[in-house]
């Protein structure tokens, strides 16, 4: 039983990472009171450009670079529409998601001459890290060690972002811009600039989540491979009201569920049903959130 459990937790951390990273991105928007739902598209774009950069230039670092740049570009587009032109944020988000889906599907066909998915031995994945010392601890070592490095980045970021949000001037200003924009403006700070930074952070983090999807979790790019993870991360943000450490924990819960599904497949449960678990869990998350907010 124990090897199954360690395997499950190991895999859960792995599946939790893209959701958590995207949720961190959306979290900054959440605190700046920007209704940013573009994580899905930013993640997809990041996943595509990670494969593109890594494949073209033969090193995963180029993948990361290209992906982050693509996230930045989408963040700029988001800001141009939502902040400068004052288009409804929800509509902008949907537009960005469609743009990412259309562009990646098209580029996949135009650049790699394939439909559906691009798989190649020549895509270098991001390296897996061994943790010396921790590796020696039974159970914990097996769960924690030998992950692609973004997994550790996500876990560290949970604590770093807690400090950023609640212990730095930037965090304070960002949250103030969300809660009381007039007060922020009255001391001479630009609310729009703060919102812009939140969009940039969202773009970078979500596209980094995409890097993990296409160069860590698996090593390929397939059409629409983000597959709703951006929406799940949004549900998590709303549920925990944008707190970084609980975001990480909730993401791990989702990771466990996703892999529980894979485990069930061994017992001849059709894959179509096990694949539904994260979405059912999201509905349940929504239910418990609604319960809690109506009781308080």
């Amino acid at each position, binding site marked *: 039983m124990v090897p199954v459990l360690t395997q499950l937790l190991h895999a859960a951390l792995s599946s939790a990472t893209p959701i958590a990273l995207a949720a961190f991105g959306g979290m900054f928007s959440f605190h700046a009171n920007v209704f940013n739902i573009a994580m899905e598209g930013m993640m997809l774009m990041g996943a595509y450009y990670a494969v593109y950069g890594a494949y073209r230039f033969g090193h995963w670092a180029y993948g990361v670079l290209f992906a982050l740049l693509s996230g930045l570009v989408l963040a700029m587009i988001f800001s141009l529409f939502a902040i400068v032109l004052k288009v409804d944020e929800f509509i902008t988000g949907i537009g960005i998601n469609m743009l990412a889906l*259309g562009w990646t599907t098209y580029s996949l066909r135009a650049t790699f001459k394939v439909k559906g998915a691009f798989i190649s031995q020549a895509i270098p994945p991001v390296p897996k890290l061994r943790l010396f010392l921790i590796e020696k601890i039974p159970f914990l070592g097996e769960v924690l060690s030998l992950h692609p490095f973004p997994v550790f980045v996500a876990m560290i970021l949970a604590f770093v972002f807690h400090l950023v949000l609640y212990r730095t001037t930037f965090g304070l200003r960002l949250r103030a811009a969300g809660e009381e924009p007039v007060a922020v403006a009255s001391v001479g700070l630009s609310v729009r600039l703060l919102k812009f930074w939140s969009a940039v952070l969202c773009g970078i983090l979500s596209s980094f989540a995409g890097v993990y999807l296409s160069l860590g979790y698996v090593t390929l790019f397939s059409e629409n491979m983000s597959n709703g993870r951006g929406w799940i991360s949004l549900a998590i943000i709303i549920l925990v009201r944008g707190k970084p450490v609980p975001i990480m924990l909730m993401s791990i819960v989702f990771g466990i569920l996703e892999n529980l599904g894979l485990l069930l497949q061994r017992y001849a449960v059709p894959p179509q049903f096990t694949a539904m678990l994260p979405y059912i869990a999201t509905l349940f998350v929504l239910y418990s959130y609604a319960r809690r907010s109506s009781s308080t």
Partner: protein
Amino acid sequence: MNTVRSVLQTAVAISLAFLVAALFILLQRSSPFEVYRALYEYGLGSWFSFTNTLNASFPLILTGLSASIAFSSGVVNLGQHGQFLWGALVAAVAGVYLKMPGWFGTAFLAVLGGLVGAGWAALAAFFKRKYRMDEFISTLMLNFLAEYTTLYLATYPFLDPKAYVPSTRMIRREYFLASFFDVNLAFFVAVFMVFLSWWFLWKTWRGYEARMMGYNKLFATVGGCDVETDTSLILILTGFLSGLGGALLILGGTQHRFMKGIGANFGWDGVMIAIMAQNSVVQTLFYALFIGFLKNGAVGMEFETSVPSEFVMFLQAIIVLTLVGARSGFASLSDWLRARSELRRLMK
């Protein structure tokens, strides 16, 4: 005056979008002129292309209508995809196994598909009413559940063993929707639903309540609307429209069976159409035809030039963003100009 201005704005925005897209075509070392010519020729150029465009647009009209009515009532139904799939699957399966006289059978299957779509949306309505769960995320999640469940049903219980991809068997031939001068009857049904929806929104008191709810929920409540019931009703109604779209795709499309990926992007296309149409029912018809034209023309574009048909997905997103951006930009520009002239007047 306002109509003229908004038509002009739209024309400018769409031209702008085509210009932006032309840059990307140039980057691909293709000629934008050739690409757009192929797009036009295969989308509108002949009677054949024109009727094909009409036939490509009926699912879009219905999902677009579904999104428009929902959004204009302040109900964020993003579940068109799932409702559409359920409508398509149930119509396809019932069309294989149920024996009915031809005409009645077709009508029955279409309504059945609609009702199943409505039922799927009713789930979100139930969640909303009973547990106060936001329909925005619940309808999205239900999309994924619908996607996997319908795929399961087409892959195992109702699989046609002779098919190459997971799909059900072809429906009985007598249920195929007929064409009228090459235009499938499904198109006329879709257009009829546009008129019906217009009548509902503007001529019935429920529709009035729905619109008031869209302007301001609080106002609607204070004014005596039963907002909760109205919300559920709109969800179910718009679910019916999406489901009907799915059923009509089976009855009047080209496949006449449910297969993996048949829902394509109709759900999100509908949402984008509603956004472009600013939730107006009549404009929805126009933009659905426009998107149908792009999709239909894309096939020819791929055939004639080296640009793959997927380019149209990107073009579509650019058009949506440019359109909403331009509208919003024009509005803030005119606000700014008015403010400036007001200021000048005061300074004097």
